[in-house]
């Protein structure tokens, strides 16, 4: 199967879940694994972009979470889509999640939470889910994570003082943990700077780099 071949698809729904952050749902044409990505565009003349699926393996539709890039080529057009409109989507591919017996920590900032939502909705469990953001509305799918993981889900809030949130960035949270587990798998997703910082910090705290898997936005 050519990962880059784009199949015609249709929009099921589009919802703005926070300022300039949208969930786009579309027909499920193929089965997929949690953590996989698709290439997607709404017009064959616009280069497709890579998005992590945020829907679960058993969901009846596929879903992505995206950030409106004002001045960008694709996302300003995606936010104008209506149910039934044409999309072009590749076969899901990639393998972020490696089902292994080891426990997992999931660490994300911003829309980097998308693959972890897919994992959660697919029945995978993490010992800790760290989500970093600056504003309350940027903790996407917060209710779902709270319901599924309770206190294992930690919102690292770097600006506002929301009751129950950890005050600080995800790196501050990791620094605050006295004994970091070394023999588990750490999954990181977000902007490259966050991923690099967290990875360096984990390595400095004695986590073998072989236990760190990263997905970077590009």
């Amino acid at each position, binding site marked *: 199967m050519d*990962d*880059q071949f784009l199949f015609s698809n249709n929009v099921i729904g589009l919802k703005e879940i926070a300022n300039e952050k949208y969930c786009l749902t579309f027909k499920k044409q193929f089965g997929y694994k949690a953590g996989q990505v698709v290439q997607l565009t709404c017009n064959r003349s616009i280069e497709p972009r890579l998005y992590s699926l945020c829907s679960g393996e058993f969901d009846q539709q596929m879903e992505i979470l995206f950030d409106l890039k004002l001045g960008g080529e694709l996302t300003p057009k995606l936010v104008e889509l209506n149910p039934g409109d044409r999309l072009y989507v590749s076969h899901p591919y990639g393998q972020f999640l*490696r089902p292994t017996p080891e426990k997992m920590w999931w660490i994300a900032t911003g829309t980097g939470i998308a693959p972890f939502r897919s994992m959660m909705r697919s029945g995978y469990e993490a010992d800790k889910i760290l989500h970093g953001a600056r504003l309350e509305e940027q903790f996407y799918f917060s209710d779902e994570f709270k319901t599924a993981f309770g206190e294992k889900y930690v919102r690292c809030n770097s600006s506002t003082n929301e009751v129950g949130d950890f005050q600080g960035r995800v790196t501050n949270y990791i620094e605050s943990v006295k004994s970091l587990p070394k023999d588990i798998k750490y999954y990181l997703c977000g902007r490259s*700077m966050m991923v690099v910082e967290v990875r*360096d910090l984990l*390595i400095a705290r004695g986590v073998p780099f072989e236990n760190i898997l990263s997905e970077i936005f590009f």
Partner: protein
Amino acid sequence: MFLNEYNESQEYNYIKIKCEMTNLSSNISKTEKTPLFGKTLSELSEIVAELKLPGFTAKQIASWLYNKEIESIDEMTNLSKKTREILSEKYCVGLSKPVKVQVSTDGTKKYLFATQHGKYIETAMIPDKERITVCVSSQVGCKMGCLFCMTGKQGFNGQLTSGEIINQLRMIDEFKSITNIVYMGMGEPFDNLDQVLKSINILTSDWGYAMSPRRITVSSIGIIPSLKRFLVESNCNVAISLHTPFENEREKLMPVQLAYPIEKVVAEIRSFDFDNQRKLSFEYIVFGGFNDTPAHVKELARLLNGVKSHINLIRFHPIPGTPLNKTNEKRLLEFKEELNKKGLLTTIRASRGQDIYAACGLLSTKGITTEA
């Protein structure tokens, strides 16, 4: 110990640069005019049409920009005064001199350039007998987050324009003697492919610098859609950052592996019809005890079986906080021989400019970028 020395020395360089920069703001192009340097002939034709100038003016401008060493529109003396005035209203040539040059004991030079947006990039010039190779940057920083690379540690700070890419060649002392260009500086060229292709168009066109594409190598970690486009739209050589043939190791070194596995990158390359002159190489940084074992030799032979290519073994230059180690010279030579015995043409790339942090994987303007 080596890392401590690195930190202190690098810090020292940043302080020096910061001090020097206080007097260098005039070198940072803050003009609101649009630079002409870096425009292709077709873009110049559009500009000329928009300004209602004669069509042939585009070729004249291209000739001034790329065949003559002018730095201002006023120097384009075969254009009428009126034409130069019209052009100057909205446009400038847009060249930018290096703001700092460091020279290695081995003759390698590292140039620091300011971008139009007040950020900084590095360029390495590597002399070797008759060859002058220039290693250009294609982005400010990098998004790819490879575990072994200093540039990745500064994150992504912006794309370079084609003009800013070529400026790194045009404005160095060795400009007239350049024999080879490698896109192996800061950034991932295939993540800025439009501007990289534009720069190559200018470098290789008759109306531009008329260089042979065989003297240009673009290195990538293997973003497959861009690789496909690059292979079709350019005739330049390609270098793919491989670093280990094993999927479960590569994904720990290079997050891109999760989206574009090396098996699929090689499969894409196999499906493309390379001619006899276009060179394909694989870059392989050798990490002691990690990717230099007999199992790696065997797997590389399987992965690259039948792919006409060359493997470049690169000595690892440790960066702060890295969990990876250098391999020893004896093992490096053995590894090379073992690969050659398997029929994989393999050489060891000389490390150059290590004392000025111009060597592979060491380019970074993090301290400068955040100050700027």
